[in-house]
């Protein structure tokens, strides 16, 4: 226990890396998800097929494989490209590889979330907006977006919870996140059980806190008078 307290500042640093990685990955996933959903809803045959290939690949390959592939394969790719431009080697950091892999994976899940949410908006809403002569940008801002957020939030919160746990795997390529640091510290202190139990508790805390935040968001974006809790 004393050992754990001695290492607490280090583990806190690792926890911050975990949170940072989760947040930037979510940002990337959200961008890819929005792009994917737009491609599926408004796109032609080609963009539709591209999105289909994207979501199919992601659904078939484990996150750990994707991370290793992007880290080691991506490094090779960067070397080849940099070599072609005649410049020196540039190293891909585990953090960057983790962000790209996790963002890429969960972007596919968010594609489905966003598409589903968009489909839930009744068609009459856009028709009514058009009938009122609203500018298309105004329509998106005032009619589509608020409802899209409302319908997408439950799925979005699910993806976030799974994504946070997924970041643990990035420690395999040497990221000094909560898991990576606790692994090293636990070995040094000869108390791996204590350290990994602490890690589990921190993840439970993350899960609990994010649930609170999402509950608050869902209440904030709920339709007044509906689902009064």
């Amino acid at each position: 226990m004393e050992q754990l307290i001695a290492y607490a500042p280090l583990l806190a640093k690792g926890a911050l890396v975990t949170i940072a990685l989760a947040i930037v990955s979510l940002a990337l996933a959200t961008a890819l998800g929005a792009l994917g959903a737009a491609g599926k809803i408004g796109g032609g045959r080609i963009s539709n097929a591209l999105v289909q290939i994207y979501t199919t690949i992601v659904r078939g390959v484990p996150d750990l494989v994707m991370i290793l592939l992007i880290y080691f394969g991506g490094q090779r790719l960067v070397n080849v490209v940099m070599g072609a431009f005649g410049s020196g080697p540039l190293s891909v950091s585990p953090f960057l590889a983790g962000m790209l892999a996790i963002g890429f994976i969960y972007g596919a899940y968010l594609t489905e979330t966003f598409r589903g949410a968009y489909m839930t908006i009744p068609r009459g809403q856009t028709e009514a907006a058009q009938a009122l002569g609203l500018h298309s940008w105004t329509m998106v801002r005032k009619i589509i977006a608020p409802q899209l957020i409302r319908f997408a939030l439950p799925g979005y919160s699910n993806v976030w919870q799974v994504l946070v746990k997924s970041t643990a795997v990035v420690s395999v390529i040497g990221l000094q996140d909560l898991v990576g640091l606790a692994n090293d510290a636990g070995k040094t202190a000869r108390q791996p059980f204590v350290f990994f139990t602490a890690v589990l508790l921190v993840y439970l805390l993350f899960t609990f806190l994010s649930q609170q935040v999402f509950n608050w968001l869902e209440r904030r974006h709920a339709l007044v008078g509906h689902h009064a809790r």
Partner: protein
Amino acid sequence: MRVDLVLENWRLFAAGTWMTLQLTFLALLIGFVIALPSGIARSRKTPFWSQLVNAYVYLFRGTPLLVQTFLIYYGLSQFEWVRDSWAWTFLRSPWWCALIAFALNSGSYATEIIRGAIETTPRGEIEAANALGLSKRQVDFLVLIPSAMRRALPQYGNEVVFMLHGSAIASVITLQDILGAGRTLNARYYLAYEGFLTAAALYMVLTFVLVFLFRQLEGHYLKHLRPRSA
């Protein structure tokens, strides 16, 4: 891309595929054995058991599988009494540790799936069974559980794929599963991606076979829910 090296080492990947399938299905089987009583206890709110199961499900669904595996494989060896006990023969082996972690993890997800399926059982089905004079046990085993299992199928199919993908973590604790084979190939020939790409392709094939199988099962067991064709 050195396809020749992949083909030359096909045995490595065949053994890896066998290891992955073994771990996945044994974990699912044990997980299901844990989940059936747990899910029933949760849906009935059985005193004590329901709380216990709740804590178990919360712990395993709220934390990463990787950390659970590390806790069992690296963590337990911290205690002398574990190393001195009969269980050490199992707990020192990465295979058993991976299986225990995967089974407990899968059990927690399956518990929630089964609970959900039981709670959405139409009231009328149970009332009809009661009206026919079936005993409590008969209602459970002849009506409630079979009906819930059917409804759990689609979600359980997702859990099976999730477990297949999660099992790649076994390679982190030195096991030679599909990903382990890929890592070995890369290390042996100093390759960057060929082994991982082959592993990715194999996982993808297995995923689609499983998805296809579950579609067939759903087509059979959920036939009564299909819209009737004119």
